[in-house]
């Protein structure tokens, strides 16, 4: 049997007694492109942080390539959900380079080989023209591209991308997804790509990992994105609607309205 790239067993994550992931189990095959889907607060970021070893599970385990790696030793590239960007006055190049063997004590002085590595990562995401500009002058999407370049450093085999489409306009979303997809195929990377809207990923993903109410469901799009499957996952009536070749998940109103797509609320 092939060792899964990421395997969770009875994984339970809580914050102060509140369960975000509740006995979740799944196994992600290596080399697959997985959309991690769920509304705000469904636990996508928490799942990523747990995989990285930054959150300690209350119960259960998560293995990367069948092992428990020491902190910082995982072959995983991580692109965090966009936060404030400090150091807006440094150039894009330096912001990416800071991640290159950044845990090593010493001065941030880069050898020719290290500079070449940074340049290669920037080229891989077509971010070369951003390298010389101060980070604060870049748009949200351009910063995302730098963060993606940063995640490619140190030759990861797995990418955890937390909402990489967050600050993009719709036209850019598919372009970005395609870039990540092609890059991953070319390098044989496993990708976990979190998003609250599945539509920009249609045609690119191999699997969907759907998170809701602390539970998770992994499968291909046709298995997961159905009314019965999601109703079972939510434990409440949920309807999957196809319109214009797009998928919408419509849940009953109230606090549990989910945003599988931006239009869910308007559909009701």
């Amino acid at each position: 049997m092939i060792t899964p790239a990421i395997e969770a067993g009875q994984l339970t994550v809580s914050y102060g007694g509140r369960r975000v992931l509740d006995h979740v189990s799944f196994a992600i095959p290596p080399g697959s492109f997985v959309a991690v889907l769920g509304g705000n607060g469904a636990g996508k970021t928490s799942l990523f942080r747990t995989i990285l070893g930054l959150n300690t599970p209350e119960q259960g385990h998560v293995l990367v390539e069948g092992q428990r790696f020491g902190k910082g030793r995982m072959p995983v590239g991580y692109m965090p959900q966009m936060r404030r960007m400090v150091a807006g006055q440094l150039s894009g190049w330096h912001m990416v380079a800071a991640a290159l063997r950044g845990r090593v004590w010493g001065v941030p002085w880069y050898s020719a080989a290290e500079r070449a590595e940074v340049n290669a990562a920037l080229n891989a995401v077509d971010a070369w023209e951003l390298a010389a500009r101060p980070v604060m002058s870049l748009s949200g999407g351009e910063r995302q591209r730098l963060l993606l370049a940063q995640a490619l450093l140190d030759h990861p085999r797995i990418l955890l991308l937390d909402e990489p489409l967050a600050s993009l306009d719709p036209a850019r979303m598919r372009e970005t997804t395609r870039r990540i997809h092609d890059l991953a195929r070319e390098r044989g990377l496993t990708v976990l790509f979190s998003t609250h809207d599945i539509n920009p990923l249609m045609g690119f993903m191999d699997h969907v990992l759907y998170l809701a109410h602390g539970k998770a469901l992994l499968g291909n799009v046709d298995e997961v994105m159905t009314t019965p499957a999601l109703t079972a996952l939510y434990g409440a009536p949920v309807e999957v609607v196809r319109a214009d070749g797009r998928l919408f998940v419509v849940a009953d109103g109230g606090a549990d309205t989910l945003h599988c797509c931006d239009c869910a609320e308007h559909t009701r």
Partner: protein
Amino acid sequence: MFAYEFMCTAFVAAFLAALVCGPVGWFLVLRGQSFASHALSHVGFAGAAAALLWGEPAFLGFGLSAVLSGMGMGVASDRFVGRDVMIGLVLSLAMGTGALCLHFLTHSAGAATALLFGDILGIAPSSLYWLGALAIGCVMGLAVMSRPLLFASLQPEVAEAKGVNLRLLDVLFLALVGIASAMCSQITGVLLVFTLMVAPAAASLRLGFGPMQGMAAAFALALFEAWGGLCLSWLTDCPASFWIALLGSVVFAAANGIAHLRGR
């Protein structure tokens, strides 16, 4: 002016302070923590005044209290977020305590002015040895931690995921800021630490240098401020602190002008 020993001492002390304040200040501004140097120098003032009252050197009291409170700040950093009123009160309390200690000192007026505004011409030549040792220690410490510190400053979540200990770096860095503030206050006094730590660093960042060149440029600008201040003070017989503060503003304004012309 170099015929006088106290002027030579002052130039060397200013060099050492700039050597530490430039690079430490660069990280301070990069991390958006420039308030920390301000805060630590206020706490350091109380420590210095208390040391004087006990008959110990002011520098020792300043250094100890600034380093300890810097480390405390690093440990408790999460709890400071959004507590600006509390922080302000603690700083006022520190200044008030310092004033109280000075009140019980006999020759308090001179000591207060020296602490608050600096007394660079009063530095004893013998103290250059340990100022030098301290400067070398600080620069070496920063050199060792600057790579992970840069990573942690720019992308804390990723750095954490790659095994960087954010809390440890926070504590170590703020301890360095404490030492740097103590050295700087020898030159500029408590109230003007900001001008030698923050102004050159902010100017260097505005000019768009990378980390290594940026730290070097911050050092060069701090040295320009400090030595320029000493020369102008010699020529005009006005306090060096005034000239250093003025040059700090000039340097920062000039850097902004240049950045603007370049369209950054």
